[in-house]
């Protein structure tokens, strides 16, 4: 019963642009995400504090202040609507009552803003993946799984519009792949462990969403590709490695949509453009206006085909003007005003190309987000339905694209990049097309204390 994506959602490059997509999603309040306008997606988090029964009232007040502040500013700046994300901190998932309470506070704040300003809003609830609290992670049952579902279900019932997660299946292996810049290990983690877990997880989340009249929105390779991006940004691993991981993470994220997710995909999923190209569903992205959460080499290009534009998250601390989330809201709104103004004038493609042009020659990670690159690679990915093979192909094609781009001087590169691209190419080519065979090969090097094969259906 899973969806198959056998062809691209776009035939014309000019349609592949921010703000609109073939399969928009309409929220309870009537925001049409992917229907033409880019919306701001606001994120926030608590300042330094402990979470327990004693401090929860304080945390509740902070959330109430945040939502009141950001929506007030959004109304003052005439936002066309606001997507709110509640990404839980671990305590709020471990103790679902905390998470449920905070989620309700946000829903109330949204209702108040609707009454007071007529502001349209919607909320994405994103519990953190609790399952990794077991070491090795227990993915398909047990108390963490149950607890997580409890939070999802009640938030859905309480009125959340979207459910998301940054799931971590396979991360326990991928972490060492990253610091070793070991592409074979990474592809195993993403293309076998990650993909298998996504099938299990999103099958459940879609069912849960369907029966509670909310939307399953999508996942993020945050624990994989964003960790890689941060490590590359700190100069710890080659940028080309992070770029390849980004694209290799696409098939894993795609699984959510095969299982029935409808978007907008998670803001921190920079693999979003590929998802949009393949599924035609709306995506959320983050870039320069998320710099308070993490630095990145894709500040502008990330917006090129985004349908929601996010600040990723920032603590409730006071800056000189106002609280940091209010500042984030203001910046997001000005960004989307500009994008939407271009659309209004029919100049969205031109604006998209400026976003692209401004970043893509400067970093390989930005380069792989170019709409043309996205389309080229995606058109190959849809030719197979095997998500492991897709992962391998994604990595291989990215290496090829980058070699070519570097050779043609289309993107700045580090003198060490070619060596690493060669190394990755060799690694990828040594991977068999059959996942079982690959798993057998990998057993020799896998740290079996770190993961439980049966939790991944192996």
């Amino acid at each position, binding site marked *: 019963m899973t969806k198959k994506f056998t062809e691209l959602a776009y035939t014309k490059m000019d349609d592949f642009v921010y703000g609109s997509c073939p399969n928009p999603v309409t929220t309870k309040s009537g925001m049409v995400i992917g229907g033409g306008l880019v919306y701001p997606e606001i994120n926030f*988090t*608590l*300042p*330094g*504090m*402990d*979470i327990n029964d004693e401090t929860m009232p304080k945390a509740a007040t902070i959330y109430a202040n945040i939502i009141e502040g950001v929506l007030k500013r959004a109304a003052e700046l005439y936002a066309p609507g606001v997507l709110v994300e509640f990404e839980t*901190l*671990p*305590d709020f998932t471990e103790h679902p009552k905390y998470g449920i309470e905070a989620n309700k506070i946000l829903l109330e704040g949204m209702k108040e803003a609707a009454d007071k300003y007529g502001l349209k809003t919607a909320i994405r609830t994103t519990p953190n993946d609790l399952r*990794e*609290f077991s*070491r090795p992670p227990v993915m398909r049952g047990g108390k963490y799984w149950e607890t997580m579902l409890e939070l999802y279900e009640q938030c859905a019932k309480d009125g959340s519009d979207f459910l998301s997660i940054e799931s971590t299946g396979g991360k326990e292996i991928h*972490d060492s792949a*990253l*610091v*070793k*810049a*070991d592409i074979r290990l990474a592809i195993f983690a993403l293309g076998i462990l990650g993909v298998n877990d996504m099938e299990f997880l999103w099958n459940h989340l879609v069912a849960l969403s369907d029966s509670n009249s909310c939307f399953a929105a999508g996942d993020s390779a945050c624990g994989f590709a964003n*960790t890689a991006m941060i*490590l590359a940004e*700190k*100069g*710890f*691993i*080659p940028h080309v490695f992070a770029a390849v991981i980004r694209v290799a993470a696409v098939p894993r994220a795609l699984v959510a949509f095969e299982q029935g997710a409808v978007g907008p995909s998670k803001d921190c999923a920079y693999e979003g453009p590929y998802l949009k190209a393949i599924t035609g569903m709306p995506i959320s992205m983050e870039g320069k206006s998320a710099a308070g959460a993490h630095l990145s080499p894709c500040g502008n290009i990330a917006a090129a085909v985004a349908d929601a534009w996010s600040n990723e998250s920032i*603590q409730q601390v006071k800056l000189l003007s106002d609280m940091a989330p209010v500042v984030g809201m203001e910046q997001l709104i000005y960004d989307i005003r500009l994008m939407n103004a271009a659309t209004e004038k029919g100049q969205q493609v031109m604006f998209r190309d400026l976003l692209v042009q401004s970043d893509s020659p400067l970093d390989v990670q930005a380069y792989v987000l170019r709409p043309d690159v996205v389309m080229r690679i995606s058109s190959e990915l849809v030719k197979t339905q095997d998500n492991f093979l897709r992962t391998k192909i994604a990595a291989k094609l990215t290496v090829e694209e980058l070699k070519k781009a570097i050779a043609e001087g289309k993107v700045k590169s580090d003198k*060490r990049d070619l060596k690493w691209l060669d190394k990755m190419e060799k690694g990828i080519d040594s991977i068999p097309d059959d996942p079982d065979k690959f798993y057998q090969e990998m057993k020799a090097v896998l740290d079996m204390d770190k993961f439980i094969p049966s939790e991944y259906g192996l």
Partner: protein
Amino acid sequence: MATLQDVSQCVLEGDLDGIKDLVQDLINEGVDPILIINEGLIGGMNIVAPLFKSGEMFVPEVMESADTMNEGMKLVKPLITDEDVPSKGKIIIGTVNGDLHDIGKNLLVMMLESRGYTVIDLGVDVKEEAFTKAVIEHQPNIVGMSSLLTTTMMKIESTIKQLIADGVRDQVKIIVGGAPVTQEFADDVGADGYSDDASTAVELCDRMMEEQCKLQELGV
């Protein structure tokens, strides 16, 4: 004829295949094993460290160098007593209670090990008592705590309180780090040191160990 410099060059290049022959050569030539370690193997890592800090080497390359060093160690260690194996100090490290962020801590562990420290990695989500237990068991010089979440940074404080309550606080220096942690926070909760990246964290530990040595010399 192999030289100590060949060994350190080999470590720098992370040439896992070449190191054994080189080290064996030196051993056969009768070079003092301690010298092979200090000037050859660790010597190599001493070149690696600044290159890493200045961004000229990547972590995977540093890891290869470290692996190469360890491969060499395997040959030399049997020739000397355990006490003679040089260690700059013993460090216990963990990500605090409730926090699963791993990578920053892992890099720290790697950098410390490759600079000659003995490191016991307690993993992630390490409860307060587990830190005490490890201090009692391993008698480290330094305890490191990593926290990446604003809602777990307070666990640094509660862990320090636990160490005090258990009477082991004064036996160790405490260093802390992670995204939401700052020098001020470190001072506030009574840690002894803070650093925002792995390279300077090693330098921090070096300074702490030096101080400790000086105090010991003074008989304090």
